[in-house]
């Protein structure tokens, strides 16, 4: 065994690279608590949800019956679930590209050593650290009907027709997605900016020496090297978009601007079924569908982006 191999097999005293029983035991004792914790916190709740989704369990009804597939079949005939599923899909398809593209654009711009760079970074990041509840309440005022809301007041002052931000079904969901993007954008700007700053300047300089334009440097140097960070961003944005709740919940409370069922997404549906109507069995079925769908989306993203990396 050469010196490097010996160094890798730290503490190994047996022949070759084999670990002794006590070393294996020691490793298990370190790993087991983490695995146990993962099973308790992640695996068991998922199994419990799957089990509950096969029952008619309602917190207000003592009798529980086994419904092996009925809850899942019922989902497809439930207009509330169908609306929520379509809305959540729209949420992901609109919010994720917006967050990633705008996040990248702002990060690339801020990476060019502009004046007041720190100020801009703070401003972009500010919405991310403001809690969602006060943010959504401010947006509620912005979208308020008539000229009592800031958005319509400004449109009115500029001579444009008013918009039914929360009363027009086609616009309401986009308006709520706007809040979500506004809130999360700062996070992606900062993450991408850190990624860009970690790219060695020598690589860019070499490209410039070879005659590359700034756009070519961005496209052929920055973006390929930033791919792992972009993958992280896409996965996080997707998970957050599927699990959007507070902004939708706040915007559908109160008497002035809410549109109720039309802006509902999967998580608000789970909340309504589980905690308003106590239909825990049915809420679990929706949760399980959400889990599977978001898992598939994330797996697909890993496959696509990692495949390109290779």
């Amino acid at each position, binding site marked *: 065994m050469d010196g490097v191999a010996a160094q890798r097999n730290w503490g190994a005293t047996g022949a070759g690279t084999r670990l002794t029983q006590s070393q294996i035991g020691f490793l298990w004792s370190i790993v087991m608590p983490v695995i146990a914790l993962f099973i308790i916190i992640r695996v068991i709740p998922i199994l419990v949800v799957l089990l509950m989704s096969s029952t008619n369990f309602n917190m207000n009804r003592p009798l529980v019956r086994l419904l092996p597939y009925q809850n899942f079949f019922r989902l497809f005939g439930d207009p509330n679930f169908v609306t929520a599923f379509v809305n959540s899909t729209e949420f992901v398809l609109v919010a994720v590209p917006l967050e990633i593209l705008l996040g990248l654009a702002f990060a690339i711009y801020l990476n060019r050593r502009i004046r007041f760079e720190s100020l801009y970074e703070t401003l972009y990041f500010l919405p991310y650290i403001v809690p969602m509840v006060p943010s959504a309440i401010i947006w509620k005022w912005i979208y308020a009907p008539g000229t009592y809301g800031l958005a319509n007041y400004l449109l009115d002052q500029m001579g444009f027709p008013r918009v039914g931000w929360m009363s027009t079904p086609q616009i309401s969901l986009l308006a709520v997605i706007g809040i979500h993007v506004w809130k999360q954008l700062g996070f992606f700007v900062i993450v991408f900016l850190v990624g860009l700053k970690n790219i060695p300047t020598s690589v860019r300089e070499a490209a410039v020496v070879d005659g590359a334009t700034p756009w070519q440097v961005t496209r052929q140097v920055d973006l390929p090297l930033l791919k792992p960070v972009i993958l992280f961003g896409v996965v996080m944005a997707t998970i957050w978009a599927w699990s959007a709740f507070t902004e939708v919940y706040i915007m559908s409370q109160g008497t002035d601007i809410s549109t*109720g069922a039309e802006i509902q997404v999967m998580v608000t549906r789970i909340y309504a079924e589980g905690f308003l109507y106590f239909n825990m069995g049915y809420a679990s079925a929706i949760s399980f569908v959400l889990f599977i769908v978001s898992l598939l989306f994330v797996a697909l993203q890993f496959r696509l982006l990692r495949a390109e990396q290779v």
Partner: protein
Amino acid sequence: MRWMIIRIAVLVLAMGLLLPTATWVGAAPVEINIWSAFPELHDQVQWIAAKYMEKNPNIKIKATLFPQRALEEKVAVALPAGQAADLIELDKMALYPYYAAGHLQPLPKNVVDWVKKNFPDYSVASVTSDKGEIFTFPWLNSLKAMFYNKDHFKEAGLTKTPETIDEMMEMAKKLTKRDEKGNLTRAGFDLRLSGGGFGTSQKYWTQVMIPYGAKVLEKVGAKWRAGYDNEVGRKALQYYIDSVHKYKVDSLDFKSDAEAFGLGITSMFQREAWVVGYMAKNAPKINYGVFLMPKGPGGWGTVGNTMGLSVAKASKYKKEAFDFAMFMMNDEMSRATFGDSGWQPFRKGVDYSQLYKTRPQLKTFIEAAQTKGHTVYDYENITPIFEIHSRMADRLMAAFKRADLLDNPTGIAKVIKETAEETNRILEDHGLLAK
């Protein structure tokens, strides 16, 4: 002698061990927790609690305020686990399922006698279960009446308040105002077109279902079914669609509810007595009055749902909790609650004459329950009642936005049929559907 010394020592030791415990038990104040959902009621409970603690220094009352939905969630988790407050304030339709599941303490005999003596019969009936137990105090009455802006009426040349729903629509048309672009600047009639889940269906029930004679639920034997998939149910929805899309006396793009009334941009709207307190605080210059809900071809009445006050079965201090609840509802506290918070106590025989001098609008709410021919409705005591009304509200709010339902009886019939099917499906899920 030695044995005597040992015996005395053991006795002293035992006394020594028991004494601090006895002192601690004797001095420990009883703490009663109460959870509230409305800020104005929370303030009132705190004020009442201070009065009660003056008289009962050994009892400490701790009141905690939550947003309504948060309270409902907290109760859902804590009450079955035996971790909820001693006293819980919620609408009785939200409390009933917990009683049915055995988490609430029915009122004991002496308290039942007191309630039967001091509360109107219909309020006692609304909180009495099929088993004959009273499961919550009928503390407050969320009775609905119409508020109107007197100056708007005068300006439109209207000299009286409407008596029928058709008359109300005609008046609303005269009261409505628009700017040169056609945007609504004053709603003749705020219909409560969105928001708050079951609150929307509650206002719809009061505004049009009762006058047309449609019922959300009708009882058949010991079970129930949707009572609005019929001609009167369709007429009720037609009234709303016409108001929004034909006569345009209200709009989805216009400010609504108490805030709009306080701003003077709504001429008429339906709400509870708490608005009187709200107006005194936020819009004292608005000249307004209150009238009973208008009649219709199918009936006359209003919804007066019950804000209950229940004692948790797991409470360690049930006797004290019941005593404090009764104190909250005595004559003096009822007067203070009505005057300060605007929430209308259910108590009967309380003299409000002094209060009427400064808040004359409150008189209509008290008289509403005593007016002959004017029926006060409350929610049925069945477990899925909240779900039935909330899901109905979701479908109604979606329908109110649909301009294609104007002059479209087939479309309206379809909306009503699908909504009623959902109501029946929920009843069936709970084994309550009448065939």
